[in-house]
């Protein structure tokens, strides 16, 4: 195994308190991308 993720990064990735805030941030970000709408492409092209 090659350690590609530093100890500090791993701490951030697995720390429940930091990750709790990440969870809120991610939920909002995912919602923005997904609920951010969708549509056609052909009309836009014209």
């Amino acid at each position, binding site marked *: 195994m090659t350690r*590609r993720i530093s100890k500090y990064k791993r701490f951030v990735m697995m720390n*429940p308190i930091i*990750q709790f805030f990440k969870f809120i941030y*991610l939920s909002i970000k995912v919602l923005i*991308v*997904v609920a*951010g709408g969708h549509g056609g*492409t052909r009309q836009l092209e014209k």
Partner: protein
Amino acid sequence: MSKIVILGAGISGHVAASHLRRKLDKSHEVVVVSPNSNYQWIPSNIWVGIGRMKSKEILFPLAPLYKKKGIGFKQAKVTSFYPEGDSEIDKPFVMVEYVSETMRGETEKITYDYLINATGPKLNFEATEGLNPGTNKAYSVCTYTHADHAWQGLSALIEEMKQGKEARIVIGTGHAKATCQGAAFEYILNVEQELRRQKVRDKAKITWISNEYQLGDFGMDGMLLSYGSNIMKSHEMVEMVFEDRGIDWILGAGVNKVEDGLTHYETLNGEQNTIAHDFAMLIPSFSGHGFKAFDKNNQDITEKLFKGFMIVDADYTPRPYEEWTVQDWPETYQNPSYKNIFAPGIAFAPPHSISKPRKSSKGTEIFPAPPRTGMPSGITAKLVADNIIDSIKQQKESLHHKGSMGNMGAACIASAGFGMTKGSGISITTYPIVPDYKKYPDTMGRKLGKTFGEIGLAGHWLKLALHYAFIYKAKMKPFWYLIPE
């Protein structure tokens, strides 16, 4: 009064049925035809496949829910399509064959005003010699029964490893043109973590085998992601994770045969190689179901409806990769010949792949087919339902709701290990799903802020939260419709 028949009760069929029922009054009939008696939340199968969830936690029976909500349900499979009716019936209909215990083998002609074909893919195990879930030490996690079976195989191997056995685990795609790399990616990381939890990780060599040209292609031609304050390519991110987890990889591999403990594959440079396995999980190729269609005079018109999967409003003109555009992708999922037939989710025929096509020096095509994950399946099903609702209410065709995969975002919350404190997830969002190289020429066809990756415990919580939210939604509990697709 209209009758809407929905074929399939997977993510897209069920989404369409629920929205139609909610928005149309009871004078209109909504009927679901599907061979499965249970609804299953497929994305959680990977946890069933590592024994951390029971299959009963990811499914529920459809008949009682549909009865309560006033949705007709026929536990049957469609066999052929008659979009003009036949000499006896003047209305369009589908021929179905019942699979329920009480009516097994009986057939019925089910007429419709609108038809939604949401039959998803056929899991085409036959396309790879010897690939049959549970035989030759190779498994699948594509359904909950397959995932249960995979866990039986894996747990038996873990027991042997505890006795000192050195094991070889191979996970990835089981065909040169398979798709759904994301599911295999989640499974390999979950298996790796489960082996660590069971304290046998040092006994296993784990290998990723895939038809992708580069890691992180995911059938989406790879992507450029914002990752924290950095920008990285998806292959760099996956490489980082695999190296960190001690997972090897074989790329550009078209698996063409599986024997007891052996996976045979052709590489892009034309070599035929073999890798041994004590446990393999290989995603099969997905194909259309081989349905037939007939006109009023019983003439075969299959080519008007199907091109493997169902023909919709895509541009199917064959063109080289360099000339592909997002405009090739469908917007309304309507069949051009029969305007009252729609095919959302995986059931529609894509115009081409998303990943760059590649051939081995022997001429074998080895590249991923385009994925259509749960989110676009749900979104396309809802927009089809909304167009049908508008058409019924306005009494004229309305195709106001559009959703091309070239103008739609998707989130892939890939589990990388189970556990409230030890779990992990790789959250990736992409916008658009199909890269728009004209609009975003410098960022590999995607909008950077909306295309991002994150790794950590929060990803696991998010995946788990989505599991509960989507099962709540599928059970049509109060305010279910507020949860987006």
